[in-house]
């Protein structure tokens, strides 16, 4: 080795070749992994979404392909989000419920993303929190893992309780607030109420629109 020093060009080229070889090898590995998992990943994503939706509306209540029967609507004043996806559940062709994701409420420290299910008769199938930034231990009890409060929406509608009592108790309504935190539950209650009002305005005609092609505006 010592007697014959390789030329710098040769060294550099060998190094480049080695590096290139491993770059190709690494890319190949990633490519293979991607090929091997792509389908499974897509399936997992679908399953995860379905699990979310099924938490609101049980699997046996509908029989259509929920994931492919949706509309993207834009009603920021009512639903809080620029775009909300509306999944339409049907059973034997008849409308069963709509599931709205996301409905956005303005909490104590930022947006709270909700998923809201509304049956065709205007009662709530269920409400869940998708994500939030509320203070741990105070506002985060809207999360079903911290407290069952959010489950209390199921079965409620704009008539039961009446519209005037769609407030937290402190404001003279029917819904519990949490000790130490009023802003968060107040925001969630208001957002759910708005979603119900939106549904009342749009009504069952939402089921008639053909499955999603374009964004449509439904205020």
């Amino acid at each position, binding site marked *: 080795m010592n007697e014959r020093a390789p030329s710098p060009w040769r060294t550099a080229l060998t190094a480049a070749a*080695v590096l290139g070889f*491993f770059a190709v*090898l690494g890319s190949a*590995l990633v490519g293979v*992994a991607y090929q*091997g998992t792509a389908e499974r*990943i897509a399936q*997992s994503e679908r399953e995860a979404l379905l699990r979310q939706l099924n938490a609101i509306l049980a699997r046996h209540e509908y029989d259509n392909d929920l994931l492919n029967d949706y509309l993207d609507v834009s009603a920021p004043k009512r639903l809080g989000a620029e775009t909300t996806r509306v999944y339409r559940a049907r059973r034997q062709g008849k409308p069963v419920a709509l599931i709205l994701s996301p409905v956005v409420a303005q909490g104590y420290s930022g947006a709270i993303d909700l998923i809201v299910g509304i049956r065709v008769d205007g009662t709530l199938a269920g409400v869940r929190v998708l994500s939030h930034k509320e203070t*741990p231990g105070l506002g985060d009890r809207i999360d079903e893992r911290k407290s069952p409060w959010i489950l209390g929406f199921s079965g409620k509608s704009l008539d039961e309780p009446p519209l005037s009592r769609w407030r937290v108790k402190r404001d003279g309504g029917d819904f519990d607030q949490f000790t130490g935190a009023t802003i968060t539950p107040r925001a969630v209650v208001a957002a759910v109420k708005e979603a119900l009002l939106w549904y009342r305005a749009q009504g069952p005609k939402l089921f008639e629109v053909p499955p999603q092609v374009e964004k449509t505006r439904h205020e």
Partner: protein
Amino acid sequence: MSDIGYRKIIVDGLWHNNQALVALLGLCPLMAVTNSLVNGLGLGLATTAVLLLSNLSVSTIRHWVRPEVRLPVFVLIIASFVTAVELVMHAWFHELYKILGIFIPLIVTNCTIIGRAEAFASRNPVLASATDALAIGFGFTAVLTLLGASRELIGQGTLLSGAHLLFGEAARAWEVTVNPDYPGVLLAILPPGAFMGLGTLIALKNLIDRYFGQRGTETAPAPTPQPEQA
């Protein structure tokens, strides 16, 4: 190189050279994800997998890679494996993948992995490197799991919550609630809890070392640990 003591590799990896407690490497993911036992275990296993694969490959190619491109090559290898592991987790452990989030791809920046590739695998035969990877990986995983478990226990009074994320639906029932009335000390699962928890674990390890060190000298001269032959 032929007379590598496997016992020593294992003991070093698990204890004397524990990456989290002694080398203090990989602390960023360690702090971030250890708010529950399952999260800690999940990231620990993912890290171990990457570590094993990278150690194996680096050890295999150790004679062919020129020194001047050694580090870039190692990084390439590690990055490829991390991406592969990320894809696999995304496919089969979807919810856990969502929870661990950015910390899976960040395994690539975990100094433990490049450190072992450079300090061990590039100088030792394949089998020894695999042993080292497993020992180091399990040592790291053990700390993540222990920290996750203690933070979960103190923070919300449960153990193994979310076990189904890792072990499938059947494990949903494994969750242990110590005391349903326990109010939970939120601090433990929030970021400051990670610092305090890790500090306590390090202190505990030092305490144990000192205890055995003292007892060892009192009874019989314990075999002094040899400095690592790298």
